[in-house]
């Protein structure tokens, strides 16, 4: 398993560099956590403890912040996060049904990752594309006015 450890070490090294760079900003914790999540994909306890050590902060403070914000996750995510908008406009125009259809299609529940590690199904509060309701977002691509299963099948096939 040497390569994995090596890769892990590389990740920690780049995190260390980021912390060193941002350490002197005023209260950079959230920015650092954001970058850490970009590097590792999620924020497991080990990463939180590492940041605590580097920043000379109690680990409990880091844990408090990580668990407070929706953006941070302690569970690994799939390659793509499929965010279904559950804002009011989307809700009124059928977001619950859209979630059901996607959930059936991927065979996962809200918050879960598909077995092949490709998609994580997640909900997001309003992406500001209300005129296209109901919408879901994968990365930076927004898909709107989704009202049948065939559209979902077609879109998701592009990511396989």
């Amino acid at each position, binding site marked *: 398993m040497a390569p994995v450890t090596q890769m892990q070490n590389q990740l920690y090294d780049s995190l260390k560099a980021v912390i060193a760079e941002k350490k002197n900003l005023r209260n950079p914790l959230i920015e650092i956590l954001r970058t850490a999540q970009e590097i590792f994909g999620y924020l497991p306890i080990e990463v939180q403890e590492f940041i605590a050590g580097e920043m000379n902060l109690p680990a409990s403070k880091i844990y408090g912040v990580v668990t407070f914000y929706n953006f941070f996750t302690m569970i690994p995510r799939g390659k793509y996060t499929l965010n279904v908008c559950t804002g009011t406009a989307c809700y*009124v125009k059928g977001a619950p049904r859209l979630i059901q259809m996607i959930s059936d299609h991927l065979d996962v529940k809200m918050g879960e990752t598909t077995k092949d590690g490709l998609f994580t199904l997640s909900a997001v509060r309003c992406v500001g594309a209300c005129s296209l309701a109901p919408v879901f977002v994968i990365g930076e691509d*927004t898909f709107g006015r989704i009202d049948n299963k065939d559209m979902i099948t077609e879109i998701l096939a592009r990511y396989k």
Partner: protein
Amino acid sequence: MSLKRIDLLICCGSGCVSAGAMKIKERFHEVLQEKNLANEINIIETGCMGPCDYGPVMVIYPEGIFYKKVTEDDVEEIVNEHFIKGRPVTRLMLHNDEEQTFSTKKEVPFYQKQVKVALANCGFIDPDSIDEYIATSGYEALGTVLTTMTPQDVIHVIRKSGLRGRGGGGFPTHIKWQMVHDNVADEKYVICNGDEGDPGAFMDRSLLEGDPHRILEGMMIAAYAIGATAGFFYIRAEYPLAIKRIRHAIAQAKEMGLMGDNVFGSKFCFDAEVRTGAGAFVCGEETALIHSIEGGRGNPSPKPPYPALQGLWGKPTIVNNVETFGNIPTIFLKGADWFASMGTETSKGTKVFALTGDIRNTGLVEVPMGITLRELIFDVGGGMTGGHKFKAVQLGGPSGGCLTVEHLDVHVDYESLKERGAMMGSGGVIVMNDKNCMVNIAKFFMDFCVDESCGKCSPCRIGLKQMLDILEKITNGNGKEGDIEELQRLGEAISKLSLCGLGQSAPNPVLSTIRYFREEYEAHIRDKSCGTKVCLDLMHFDIDKDRCIGCSLCARKCPVTCITGSREEKYTIHQLDCVKCGNCQDVCPVKAVNRIPGMHPEVLAKHTAEANLTSHHDD
């Protein structure tokens, strides 16, 4: 710089981009290159033009021709016909039901009743270009303020204009500024609140993306007035483009010397930076926002002390909404009297709204305060879609309330809306037709608030959960007499006792729907029936035997095989097994499957029997 004969403005707001605006822009570049026209036509990416429903939209100057729902395949035709032969493409223009054509942007009915102040440049200039902003009198207001006015003069102008906070509360802007101005401190801060968390609202996003320099200029004028030397933009992480645009605007302003030390040769020095949120609705509350910038959990703290006295890092701080800053440069360019001439006695100027829901012209609009809801929904919004009837309009998101048909002639201002149980809020307007269940909508907002409650104070953390539980019981057929009164009692207590604005206003959607749609709550509780057939437990599916052709498709698609029958006898749903997935309705080729309000009698009988059994156990 070469002169171009045509300016092609392509809306690159989020709605149009989702509808494919970027691909269209690429295609224009390709076609113009092919035809050797690239040096004659200027392609400009603008911020949101407003009518998102028509997206992707574009406007072509000098004539101001407006095209809607343009596709990649239309590009060649526009270039050949419009750009080369000078014949605008009528097919892509807006037409109404009476076959009337609106060829230019000015004629489009959507824009008729709008007055653009904060949105003046949105959809008109390239947001990444400081030159274009300066060409529309950008930074002129800042120059005038810094070279000819004292900070106190600035506050006087704002007072005269009557500007109130556009973030929702409507607190007079000049009072906030005056308080910070009067507090003596070695450092003061100004914060732009761009944590637009209301579901169904995208005003701040469009402003930050469409005209970032305006917000920056507004912030600098505020900083000068209160004596701040540093500013922070707090923008939610879900808006990466807004973050990028503001960062770019700050860099450009610094490069031009419009920000930094001794701006315009004055003594005013200022620096700004962007801090991003991490997904917490409560961070829109000013004290929570401040804690978040300080790197901690975004829990609100009790007021007083107000941020004006002890804000960011304990220093006097003003927190203003994006749109509030967006109004400021224009107030100084056109005068406080001009601004105050629009609107009502207590609410001056204009307000930006994000119109969404079951109306034709969903999108971003700016209208004078005091406009009636009828004008906003039916004239600007173009009325309801699909011939449905107007049922309710929700203003103010999770903090606001629903208004009904009887309120259509209410003038939109802070006080009139509040009196009737709704609120201006940040500007999300969701119009609903008669297919929406109000109990379900109230439950939706309550679910949102329970999810977003930070948990610091118990009325909000525990109380809202209790309200949600009751609403869930009501919508799944377990509502009982007294539930409505209990919701009201809890709602009023939570409003009075919660620490911050989130909890204080969270019961509003429930209280206002009880006030105006009590009979719907009663039907859910007493008759176990959802008239709009939205609440799945309080409706059932039924196959119309006269229409059914016995094709068996529904039976084959039913996941619980609860549909049986034959070609001769037609098909029947066994109600006790049905899971209400709706597959049968989706697949029926002759639309013989209907949704019927109320529990099916068989299900109701079983449900009542079970409920009696449980209540005996309780005894």
